[in-house]
C-alpha cells in the first residue's frame, strides 16, 4: 500500500477531485498549507514596510491506496493539477505499512477504501 501526498494549487482542487473520481479514487484527506518552492511569492507591503512573501497558499492531498491504484492516482492528480506553470506542485509517494478502519477494526488493503 502507498501513502501519497500531493501539493497542488488551491484553485485546482476541484479539477483534481474530478479526475480522481474518474479513476475511482474517492477517499482522501485535504488541508491547507503554505509552500515555498520555485514559484516566486508576492511582496506584501504594510505601512511602507515590505515583506517578501516567500510562502504561497497550497492545498495538500493525502491519499492512501493499494499498490495497483498508485499509478492511476498519480496520473489523475497530474491531469487535474497541471497548468504547465511553475508552482503546479509535487507528488510524494511513501510506503504504507498498515491501515485500520476505526469503525470496524478491519486492517490492511480491505480497510483502505
Amino acid at each position, binding site marked *: 500500500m502507498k501513502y501519497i501526498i500531493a501539493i497542488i*494549487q488551491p*484553485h485546482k482542487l*476541484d*479539477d483534481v477531485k474530478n479526475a480522481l473520481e474518474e479513476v475511482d479514487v474517492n477517499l482522501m484527506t485535504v488541508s*491547507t498549507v*503554505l509552500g515555498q518552492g520555485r514559484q516566486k511569492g*508576492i*511582496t*506584501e*507591503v*504594510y505601512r511602507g514596510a515590505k515583506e517578501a*512573501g516567500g*510562502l504561497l*497558499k497550497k492545498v495538500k492531498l493525502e491519499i492512501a491506496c493499494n499498490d495497483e491504484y498508485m499509478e492511476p492516482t498519480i496520473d489523475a492528480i497530474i491531469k487535474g493539477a497541471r497548468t504547465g506553470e511553475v508552482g503546479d506542485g509535487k507528488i510524494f509517494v511513501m510506503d504504507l505499512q498498515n491501515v485500520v478502519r476505526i469503525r470496524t477494526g478491519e486492517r490492511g488493503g480491505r480497510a483502505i477504501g
Partner: protein
Amino acid sequence: MNSGDTAWILICTALVFIMTPGLAFFYGGMARRKNVLSLLMQCFIIMCVIGLQWVLFGYSLAFGPDAGHGIIGSLKWMGLAGVGGAPNPDYAGTIPHYVFMMFQMMFAVITPALIVGAFAERIKFSSFLVFIVLWATFVYDPLAHWVWGVGGWLRELGALDFAGGIVVHFSSGTSALVMALLLGKRVGYDKHTFRPHNVPFTVLGAALLWFGWFGFNAGSALAADGLSANAFVTTYVAAAAAGLTWALIEWQQHGGATVLGTATGVVAGLVAITPACGFVNPMNAIFIGIIVSIFCYIAVAKIKPLLGYDDSLDVFGVHGVGGLWGTLATGLFAETEVNAAGADGLLFGNVHQFLVQCLLFVVAGVFAVVATWILYKIVDATMGMRVDVKSETIGLDLTQHNESAYTMLE
C-alpha cells in the same frame, strides 16, 4: 433653524455614512478569502474619492441651481461656493445647508459602492477608480438632479422617490448588470459555487446597513417629526417582512433557512421600501416587503443561473429588482393621508401617479444602461477593465493591493 431637526439630520448623516463600511463587510464576507480586502478597499476609496468629488463639483451638478431644462445643475456651487451654515429653504429650511449637503453626500457615496458587488473579484483597481468617478459624475449626479434637484424634470413631472429607490438602488442595480455582462464571468464560475468566506462579516454588514438605513429613510424627511417617524416604522417592518419571507422561501425550497438568505431578504426589503417609506402606511409596507423577497429570490436563484451572467454579489437581483418594485409600489400604495406633500397612488384612485412612476424607472433604466455601457467601453478601451487570469487566480488582495487579509502561520 431648528436644533432638533439639525441634530436629527446630523446624526442621520452619520448613520448613512456607516452604511458604506457596512456594505463593505456585507460584500467582503461573501467574497473569497483572497479578495476580501479588494472589496473593503473599493468601498473605502469610494468614500474618499466621491466625497471629494461631491464637495468639489458633484453636489453642484446634482443640487445646484438648474442649468436649464431640468437636465443638470450648474457649477455655481463648485467647491461649496455659496453653501454654508445657513439653511437653504429650497431643500430644507430648518437645518444648515451644509447638513443637507453632507446628508446627500452619503447617498452619492454609497450608490457607486453598491455596484462594486457586481464586478467583485475580477476588476482592475485603477480602471475601477476611473470608472467610478465617471459614473458618479455622468450617471448619479444627473439622475439625482432630475429626480430631486429643484427644477429637475422628473421632479417637475411629480415623480416620487422618497429616499432613493430609483436614484440610488435601481440606477446602481441596472448599471451593475451591465458591468457584470460586459466583464464576463469569474474564472471557475461555471464549475463550482463560490462560498462566502466569512458569513458573520456579511451578517455584521447587514446589521450595519439596517442600522444606517433608518438614517437613510427617516432622515429623508429632513426633520424630526411625524413623517420621519412614519418612514422609520415602514423601513423596519418592510425589512422584517422581507427577511422572514426570504427565510420561508428557502425553507420551502431547501428544507432550511440560511442567515445569508435572511440578511439578503432584509436588504431587499430595505431597498424596496426606500422610495415608498415616506408615502405609504406600515401595513402596506409589510406587503411591499413580502413581495420584494419573492421577486428578488426569483431573480437571484432562478433567473440569474438561467441567463448565466455573473453578478457576483447579486447587485442587480437585490438592488435593481428591489428598487424597481419599490418604485412601482410607491405608485400603488402612496397616500396623501400619510404625506400631504406626496400623492395618492393607483390603489387610492390615482392612475396618473402610477404612470409617472413607470416613466421614472424606464427613463432611469435606459439612461443608466446606456451611460454605463459607454463609460465601460471608454475605460476598457483605454486602460483595460479586467485583471489577467493569473491575477484573478491568485486573488486581487495580493495582486492589486500587495496585502493579504489574514495571516496563516501563527
